[in-house]
């Protein structure tokens, strides 16, 4: 049985332009409309923050603390199948803390995968058109659901890599501490490499059918994961040792998962460079649909969907695809739009839908 995740109550304080907000969302569909700059995205960002401890639009979540406020706090009541729980995030300028039912989680990775949410927003286009790092971030987020230790390995691998680079730059290719850092790079890098591959395989398996469902059948779409390192400790160690000179000269580590790429190919050519804008947009949607399917399978629960700025590109294919999600999904959905009339939703029972209006950081029914 796949459980459904539902937010039953949301409380936001001191977050962007939201001074204080307390509401009980509808179980299925919440359509949040309002004029530009009134706080629609901020509501979704707050829900995303309390679920993942991150933001989908800002590098630093602390940016979201309301100007002049000391802290931002988001608190939610979550229903997860038969279970209920309270989650809370408090943001201060140089600190963020999360609690679940009043207790601090042993690991952030456990907290961040407890209440799965998948967000669709205009910035997602970088998944297709942007640099490889954006796709690695997606793979890493998925990997957390498949292997909760992968986040730890990534942080430790990154730190060991930076330490090795510094040792190389300052003391050359024979520095006596290089083997220590390279050992750690191998130890964590092989694990990260494996987590990325597994995550890419899971995503790829969902991505190709998702794209076929949305795009004209004449386009052939494939994905290919190109590892930057190796899952073999021997090979990884050998490469690091033999690339010291080159890595010192170029001031960058040339071998390892920091160079992983998830290639998206349309008719055999890089979608990033060759696909049209419309194709890129379709592909972005397919990526999100695949992410949703992977998270659902890994977590055995219907993630909550956050659809930001639905009307920003009035693209019929996109609209159609989003309707497909709505019809086919049992997820609780929050969608923001400047035009609520875009949302006739015959598939959703009217008791399960609430329309909200955001005005100046406040939310009202209707």
């Amino acid at each position, binding site marked *: 049985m796949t459980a459904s995740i539902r937010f039953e109550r949301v409380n936001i304080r001191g977050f962007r332009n939201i001074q204080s907000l307390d509401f009980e969302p509808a179980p299925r569909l919440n359509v949040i409309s309002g004029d530009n700059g009134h706080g629609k995205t901020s509501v979704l960002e707050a829900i995303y923050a309390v679920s993942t401890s991150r933001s989908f639009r800002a590098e630093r979540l602390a940016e979201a603390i309301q100007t002049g406020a000391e802290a931002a706090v988001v608190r939610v009541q979550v229903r997860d199948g038969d279970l209920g729980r309270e989650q809370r995030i408090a943001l201060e300028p140089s600190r963020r803390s999360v609690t679940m039912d009043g207790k601090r989680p*042993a690991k952030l990775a456990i907290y961040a995968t407890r209440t799965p949410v998948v967000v669709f927003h205009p910035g997602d286009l970088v998944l297709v058109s942007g640099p490889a790092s954006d796709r690695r971030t997606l793979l890493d987020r998925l990997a957390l659901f498949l292997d909760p230790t992968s986040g*730890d390995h990534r942080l*430790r691998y990154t*730190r*060991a890599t*930076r*330490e*090795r680079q*510094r*040792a190389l730059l*300052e*003391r050359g290719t024979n*520095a*006596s*501490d290089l*083997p*220590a*850092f390279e*050992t*750690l790079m191998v130890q964590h890098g092989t694990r990260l490499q494996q987590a990325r591959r597994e995550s890419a395989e899971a995503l790829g398996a969902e991505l190709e059918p998702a794209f076929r469902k949305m795009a004209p059948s004449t386009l052939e779409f494939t994905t290919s994961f190109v590892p930057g390192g190796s899952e073999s400790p021997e090979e990884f160690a050998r490469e690091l040792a033999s690339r010291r000179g080159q890595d010192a000269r170029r001031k960058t580590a040339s071998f390892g998962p920091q160079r992983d790429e998830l290639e998206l190919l349309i008719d055999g050519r890089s979608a990033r460079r060759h696909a049209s804008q419309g194709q890129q947009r379709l592909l972005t949607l397919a990526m999100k649909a695949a992410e949703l399917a992977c998270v659902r399978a890994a977590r055995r629960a219907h993630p909550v969907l956050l659809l930001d700025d639905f009307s920003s590109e009035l693209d019929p294919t996109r609209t159609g695809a989003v309707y497909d999600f709505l019809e086919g999904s049992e997820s609780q959905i929050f969608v923001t739009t400047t035009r609520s009339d875009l949302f006739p939703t015959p598939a959703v029972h009217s008791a399960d839908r609430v329309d909200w209006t955001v005005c100046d950081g406040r939310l009202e029914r209707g």
Partner: protein
Amino acid sequence: MLPERLNKVIHLLARLPGVGEKTAQRFALFLATEAGDVANHLGAELTTLLDHIRPCDRCGNLADYDGTAAICDVCRDTRRDSNLLCIVARVQDLLAVERSGAMRGRYFVLGKLLSPLDGIGPEELPLERMINRIREDKVTEVIVATPPSVDGEATALLVARELEPTGIAISRIASGVPHGGDLEFADQITLGRAIDGRKAIDG
């Protein structure tokens, strides 16, 4: 608002670990108003503290200094197994391992962890002193109890490499201590288990 002298005390107190500007102010006001005797005693003790307390000449733990030498209680304790040496990063870690009760040997305090990003390379670590100590005491087993952070692990690997030619048995405390956690804050049982469950280092 406050006399300059008091502000100076506040600034100095605020440099202590874990003490912010507010707490420093509370301490300073307490000393200045309610606890003049504490202030005088504290002042007298602090003035001569560094004349009487030094890192132990042998292990780096804190010890009484008698004008010629400083040897700590652990190094003086003849019931200790001198063939067993535990290597730690800081005095706090030594105290944490002691609290666990699982260590019957002696210690060597490195003072810092390897961390090129913070400007600490191998030559900043007292590796030569460590090896001399091991030779003098005819140490046969070394336990590396640096914290489980990346820097702590790298330091353990470096120490293991330095000691490799000696053929001494080297082990690392087991990973009972949470990743990135501080030994200081690991509970006694966890740390005791980590020491009992130590494993050979394979670099």
